[in-house]
């Protein structure tokens, strides 16, 4: 079977999850590659979730929250925005393409926007190909060699 991108999506309950739901109920077509996980607010998004997702086999991770100014907990999405910049920097330093991680804003009424972003992000990951974290098995040739 050919490779299909596996993407973890973390969506805030109040805007983006509802937006994604709307995309579904409006019967919009978009790729099925994103496995959606609902959270109360992107402010709860611990960077460790991103790392864990990659470790567990995700090729990409997308986080989506309310538009700036619309977070139901005031500041959550701004916290996430700052984290996102640092997450990308750390990923890049580890050789993991920073485009494998994306932060977006989708409101409850923007089902079409979610559908568009999903398709676009899936395409980005498809172009980047599968994430292959380096393990000893990959380095086997050199691990025991002189």
């Amino acid at each position: 079977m050919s490779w299909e991108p596996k993407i973890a999506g973390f969506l805030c309950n109040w805007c983006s999850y509802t937006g994604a739901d709307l995309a579904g109920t409006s019967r919009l077509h978009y790729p099925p590659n994103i496995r959606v996980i609902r959270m109360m607010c992107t402010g709860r998004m611990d960077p460790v979730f991103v790392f864990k997702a990659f470790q567990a086999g995700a090729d990409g991770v997308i986080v989506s929250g309310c538009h700036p100014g619309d977070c139901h907990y005031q500041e959550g999405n701004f916290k996430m925005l700052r984290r996102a910049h640092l997450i990308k920097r750390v990923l890049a330093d580890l050789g993991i393409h920073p485009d494998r991680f994306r932060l977006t804003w989708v409101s409850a009424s923007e089902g079409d926007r979610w559908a568009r972003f999903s398709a676009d992000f899936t395409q980005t990951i498809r172009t980047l190909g599968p994430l292959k974290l380096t393990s000893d098995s990959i380095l086997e040739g050199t691990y025991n060699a002189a």
Partner: protein
Amino acid sequence: MKPKLALYWAASCGGCEIAVVDVEEHILTIADFFDIVLWPVAMDFKYKDVEAMPDGEITLCLFNGSIRNSENEHMAKLLRAKSKVLVAFGSCAQEGCIPGLANLFTKQQIWDYVYKQSPSTVNESGIFPQPINKMPEGTIEIPTMWDTVKPLNQVVDVDYYVPGCPPQSDQILNVVVAVIDILKNGQPLPPKGTILGAGDKTCCDECGRERKEKKIKKFVRPHEIIPNPKECLMDQGIVCCGPATRSGCGAKCTAVNVPCRGCYGPPPDCLDPGAKMISALSSVIDASEPEEIDSILATLTDPVGTFYRFNLAASILGRGQMEVRKQS
């Protein structure tokens, strides 16, 4: 018969050994209670003496250093078999420590730099270390370097951990006294995997500095400012790994105006110190616009080397994607 004690160094700087000696006169208590059967830094025992012992003969082995060559690995496996209790002693054995940062490169890259490119190297005939060398006098064998630096528990089963680079001598003494007490009174050992000689909070909890609401417009490196001795260093723009580090050292570094570098490893329930530092720094940066966030972050030097200085080899993403890194 006295219980037997082994102390060993694998890929180690020797600092952990010095920390043991730094328990000063108490070393006599240790030597009195235990029969020391291996301690390469201080005493002359041969590997073959250990190889000749029955399995489980050594009561306690304090193992420092990471595993990065064939000799380290052989000794880790040997001492595991011969010891009832194997302790990963110090950051190198616990989580890879500074040597673990070598995992950002391949063995080939490291060798090319060290034996060819470094400015102080002259090696016109391109000689690299060979594990087997035939000489007129006979054959010499040296250990083979592996491509990956590993903490002890990625190679053998480990019973306990003593964190620190190096562990503080007062904590070493606490651990040894507790072990002697357990052995004397026949008490049960702590649960396997317990972190000994450290606290269960963060370094910030031990740090006496005053914390306020943090609003950083720019990060500075420690040599660029003279920090206020009372205020949290992070509030002053210095990256301090206190929030992502286990308590136990008594916040020794911040007490002398130096940021915590994270040598006591992650605190309880922290799966990845780098992730924790991303959260901690993100909450001190005073910006909400992408451009300003970027310009503040541009003042931050080497996040991977700073956040994972002691634990890259044990981190969730480990070496990342080497193939991509190599090209950059």
